[in-house]
């Protein structure tokens, strides 16, 4: 019993120590720029939690992080370094925007089509990266990076050319969508409950696929050893493509929701960096979808809280990003250290 307790405490220590280290590291960065670390952390926390409106903002930011995290847990399970979620979000938003601008139906049928279009767009973009990986042997990191750049160029071109508002193109994006393509919000907050529901469903889907289905087991086998998985008769090429498509659909959904539920228009920075932040989320979650919601909530809170640094302390909001990145690095460092110690003692 005491042995078990000791093991649990050790596991807990391995979880908490890297976070403390990351806070210390960020504190040093803050001291270097002449700010009070404790005050800064306090401001972030307050900025994220001080009012129900802020809680709603945190949940709104949680949606794309959870969606991308859920999608990437599938590609990571298959051993694929899919970094293309950023581009998949953008293309999802573009497809959704096209439907929102061109389909004039009542609210729910329009929303249905907008959301499906977003998922199709993201899935298409992920599928292209998958095709490059499977048939042209372009590693998915390079393929994903390239596709991200193309998506960024595409969205800028669309906003500044065919979709520019009547009063002239600016970085503030297209004309607002017609109101029949707006996802309803909760009361006076900015929170779209439908989006939260869909993100929860996506996380559950990723979880059950990986835990409870043959498909998920086969993806995990591929992630452990692609060659052995192939020899066991797993259709590795087909599964790689489908994992890219599923991840792309979830990222594309995130893009569609950013456009129709948050901004009600297409803006150049529609992805808001959630494609990369989502990757940090899934890495910190140990590639397990069941941990994605909690980690995503934490990241969403930092994201919503850090603009307060600018208002009250004249610091740049990107310090929140420093904190997020530091946590991921220290957690990875601790995992590596722990593995190394385990190897030495065995």
């Amino acid at each position, binding site marked *: 019993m005491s042995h078990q307790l000791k093991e649990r405490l050790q596991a807990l220590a391995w979880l908490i120590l890297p976070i403390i280290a990351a806070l210390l590291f960020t504190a040093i960065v803050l001291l270097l720029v002449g700010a009070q670390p404790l005050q800064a952390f306090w401001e972030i926390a307050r900025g994220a939690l001080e009012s129900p409106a802020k809680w709603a903002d945190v949940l709104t930011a949680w949606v794309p992080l959870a969606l991308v995290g859920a999608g990437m847990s599938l590609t990571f399970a298959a051993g694929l370094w899919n970094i293309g979620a950023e581009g998949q979000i953008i293309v999802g938003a573009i497809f959704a925007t096209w439907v929102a601008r061109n389909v004039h139906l009542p609210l729910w049928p329009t929303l249905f089509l907008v959301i499906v279009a977003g998922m199709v767009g993201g899935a298409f973009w992920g599928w292209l990266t998958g095709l490059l990986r499977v048939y042209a042997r372009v590693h998915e990191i390079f393929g994903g990076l390239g596709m991200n750049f193309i998506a960024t160029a595409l969205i800028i071109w669309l906003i500044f050319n065919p979709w520019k508002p009547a009063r002239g193109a600016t970085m503030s994006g297209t004309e607002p969508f017609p109101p029949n393509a707006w996802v309803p919000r909760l009361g006076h907050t900015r929170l779209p409950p439908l989006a939260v529901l869909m993100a929860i469903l996506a996380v559950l889907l990723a979880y059950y696929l990986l835990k409870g289905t043959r498909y998920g087991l086969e993806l995990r086998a591929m992630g452990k050893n692609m060659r052995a998985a192939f020899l066991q*008769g797993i*259709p590795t090429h087909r599964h790689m493509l489908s994992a890219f498509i599923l991840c792309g659909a979830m990222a594309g959904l995130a893009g569609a929701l950013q456009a129709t539920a948050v901004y009600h228009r297409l803006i150049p920075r529609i992805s808001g960096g959630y494609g990369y932040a989502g990757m940090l989320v899934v890495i910190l979650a140990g590639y397990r979808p069941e941990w994605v919601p909690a980690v995503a909530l934490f990241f969403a809170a930092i994201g919503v809280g850090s603009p307060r640094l600018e208002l009250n302390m004249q610091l740049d909001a990107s310090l929140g990003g420093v904190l997020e990145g530091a946590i991921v690095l220290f957690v990875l460092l601790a995992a590596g250290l722990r593995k190394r110690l385990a190897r030495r003692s065995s």
Partner: protein
Amino acid sequence: MRVEMRQIHKSFGPVHANAGVDLTLEAGRIHGLLGENGAGKTTLMKILSGYQSMDSGEILIDGKPVTFASPAEAIRAGIGMLHQDPLDFPPMTVLDNFLLAFDDRLIPDRKRGEAMMLELAQRFNFPLNPHVAVERLTVGERQQLEIIRLLALGAQVIILDEPTTGISAPQKVQLFATLRRLAHEEGKAIVFVSHKLEEVEALCDEVTVLRRGKVTGHKPMPVPIDELVRMMFGQSIAMPDKPPVPLGEIVLRAEKLLITGHRLEIRDASLEARAGEVIGFAGMEGSGQSLFLRTIAGLIRPKRGHIFLDGEELTGRPYREFMRAGISLLPADRIDEGLVRGLTIAEHFPLRRETPFFIDWEENRRYVEKMIEFYNIKGRPETPVESLSGGNQQRVLLALQPPKLKVLIMEHPTRGLDIGSARWVWEQLLKRREDGTVILFTSADLDEIMTYSDRVVIFFSGQMYPPIRATDLTVEELGYRIGGRAAPDAEA
């Protein structure tokens, strides 16, 4: 210079690659290091040349103990190695590769280096052009570059790891002449690592034979071929008897296959196998038997020819369809190809069983527990496969096979297994014959091949010979033939 390796031990996980090896190298001698693949030759030489650390043991140069932390330290002490795949920089020129070896100044003196290179190349009649890229050279020419590079670095001991793979016949003649000159005229110590008997016989002054990480013999040449074969393959362990099973219809037919591998081409390979038949594939490692069997398994597509299973043509279909048709391959590398490292025993079964899309893990666990008991696997459903012993890994692999198979292909079914597990594996395989399964297997253990095969197919450097009935063969004869020659009485 005299190099002694004493009681060298090196393990990789559970594999004891070198288990107390002694080796002495003398200046002016060509020392053959002979053994099957996996016998521990390359590991031993990588230790000597500083590429790998040893677990225990000592290396003495002229009686003084030395340790090498890197290949650079070994070459400074005069020991250099030519690797099986040359470790050079293909896009760079011959001269750049040569200079990289020893000119470590910021701005290398190219003129001096070129003169030095050409002088060395001329001394051995190597037609090397300093200004072409290394990627345009043949393997033989790259070896020549490696040799003069090591000489320029002052190597007194030169190790060559399987140097004759992939070079042409004239290049081989020239290589042997060069090695003889280096040893006998210039007083270098040469280590010639090989699994080819006839080359060791033609070239070496003395030979050390390794088997499963241990020295099984050290003798001055010449040594009779059958003695070398015995040292390489050893005396086999007693195995269960093979009760006769009447053979059925022809199940598998391969017609005039043309198969191209990495460094090998097999032409006109044909085979017919009947239900319940056991066919052993004998040959030195890399002679083509694995290539042929992996083609039958559907992993390699033949360039020409046909494969039929029960009269239905499978040629050109994907591997999964070969599996679905009832052909199964159990690879020699059980943990890196056969099983999925990192998954548990229980997680392997839904990959191969008829399983619904939504896995019933409870039902699967009950099934796996039954299989663990039936196949006597020392492990639990949640045990990761990589923590099992080799024998238990093989048991899991056999337990994963569907009950009715038409063709079961085994690469080295008992390699690395203890006697108990080896016997058990063959009991299982022999039982499968009763369902009409064809068993095709490779083995480096000639007794294993003679004991269990109905017929034996011999491979020698890409040539597949027609099957011979095992009753028409002896172990000695088989040993001669896989060495590429007929038995002495057949020559007479």
